[in-house]
């Protein structure tokens, strides 16, 4: 029988902070990270707001990344490596005790964010900064990992896919420790204009903190965020042998394709429902044990409607008993990083027996009938939680995390 895959480290860098704990404190207290864009002059754009990582990140990252290497990295690559190093340091992961050939890095990366707002890109570093695979490569280089390191691009589900691949490597006995996660930023004029052209973004520029309002009747699109999310996955026997702090078990996942439309999900969320059903079935999970769903919850008309209908379809008359919340209500949509950031938050929720709220939910959409943990956090022991990611291109994923007994 295969060993369990455990989460022994988590970290997030986002608009709400530079560490997991800082993010968690802000999330649980319902604080929004959305502000006017300051990375560049956005005054001519339809959307002028985003969830930017604090400016203090630059100084913070200098504690973890040498100047020489920083010059060869984009800001997003720096977020990724910094989040990883801080996680390994904070959680005392004894890297030197692992066989380097059985350590891997898999990241969900749409691109390296070498955009027009990136500073100090020149002819000498343009290739290295532009390589999307550089993000996993830098981690492999830093720790001397000789197992596989690669990146996966499935748009907004990228880093959830990376987590799934990391699970497989351990389950198939091809690795003992896998660093998974992702990083992204689309806070640049080109991509904001592109999303605006698709009518995907909120234009509630006068009320940045209230712009991302998943499941609300007056939602008008998502708000872009940026950041990095990292999880350290470890074989159960290794984690137990070293008496590691175990945050949760990654029990499995489902990845499916909508095969329907490049942008829109299948009508009534059929593809989303199928993904959750498959994840629950493949992990032998009792539906009644699912206490929490960290929703994809983008704040777009279609996603929030269809995801809600999908949850109703999967859980039937018990759907309203499952707590559902959207981290994007506070962080915005971090695109390639979203799957990992939200997975880390889901794991933290299990660990803390607390669920962060969906903020800005004062105007209920009569079509949406679930328990969205509106505006106020909730104390609740969580036996099992799902983390959903649904991407342009029809890339669906549901990750299943379970409370691990004696995880103190």
């Amino acid at each position: 029988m295969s060993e369990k895959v455990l989460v022994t480290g988590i970290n997030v860098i986002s608009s709400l902070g530079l560490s997991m704990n800082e993010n968690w404190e802000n999330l649980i207290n319902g604080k929004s990270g959305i502000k006017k864009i300051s990375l560049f002059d956005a005054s001519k754009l339809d959307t002028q707001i985003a969830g930017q990582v604090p400016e203090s990140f630059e100084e913070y990252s200098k504690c973890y990344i040498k100047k020489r290497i920083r010059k060869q990295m984009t800001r997003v690559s720096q977020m990724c490596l910094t989040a990883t190093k801080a996680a390994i340091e904070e959680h005392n992961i004894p890297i030197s005790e692992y066989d380097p050939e059985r350590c891997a890095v898999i990241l969900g990366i749409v691109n390296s964010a070498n955009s027009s707002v990136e500073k100090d890109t020149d002819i000498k570093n343009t290739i290295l900064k532009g390589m999307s695979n550089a993000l996993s490569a830098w981690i492999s280089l830093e720790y001397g990992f000789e197992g596989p390191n690669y990146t996966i691009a499935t748009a907004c589900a990228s880093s959830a896919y990376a987590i799934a691949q990391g699970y497989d490597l351990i389950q198939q006995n091809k690795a003992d420790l896998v660093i998974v996660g992702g990083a992204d930023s689309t806070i640049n004029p080109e991509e904001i204009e592109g999303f605006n052209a698709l009518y995907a973004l909120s234009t509630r520029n006068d009320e940045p903190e209230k712009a991302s309002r998943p499941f609300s009747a007056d939602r008008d699109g998502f708000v872009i965020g940026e950041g990095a999310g990292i999880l350290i996955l470890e074989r159960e026997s290794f984690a137990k042998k070293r008496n590691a702090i175990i945050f949760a078990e990654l029990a499995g996942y489902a990845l499916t394709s909508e095969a329907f439309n490049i942008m829109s999900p299948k009508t009534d969320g059929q593809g989303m429902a199928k993904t959750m059903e498959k994840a629950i079935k493949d992990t032998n999970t009792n539906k009644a044990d699912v206490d929490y769903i960290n929703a994809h919850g983008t704040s777009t008309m279609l996603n929030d409607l269809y995801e809600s209908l999908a949850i109703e379809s999967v859980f039937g008359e018990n759907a309203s008993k499952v707590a559902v919340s959207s981290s994007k209500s506070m962080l915005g949509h971090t695109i390639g990083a979203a799957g990992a950031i939200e997975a880390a938050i889901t794991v933290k929720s299990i660990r803390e027996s607390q669920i962060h709220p969906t903020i800005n939910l004062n105007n209920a959409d009569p079509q949406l009938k679930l328990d969205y943990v509106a505006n106020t956090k909730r104390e609740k022991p969580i036996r099992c939680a799902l983390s959903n990611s649904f991407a342009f291109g029809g890339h669906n994923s549901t990750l299943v995390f379970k409370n691990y007994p004696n995880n103190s």
Partner: protein
Amino acid sequence: MAELTDKMRKEVRAIIIEFFAEECEVEQSEINDSTHIFDDLDGDSLMFLELIEIFKKKYSLNIELKAIGKYSVKHPVRTVGELLTMQLMIIEHENNITNL
């Protein structure tokens, strides 16, 4: 092609040490000829190219990258001292370093 003087040798050494100290965030006093560029300084091969660019401009050198490539296959550079030797050779022999 230039005739090397003691002043030039000192100048080249000073530039190399200053470059590594700045890029690798170490004190100049920590760098000597036996300092390993990769193991001790966490340096990388791109630094060689950047230094060559600096010296190309400074001494108006006629040197092609492929000539440096051929030379460095025969004379691998790992330490600051070896890099200094290579830079001096380039200044002295330019593209003719391939014959060395």
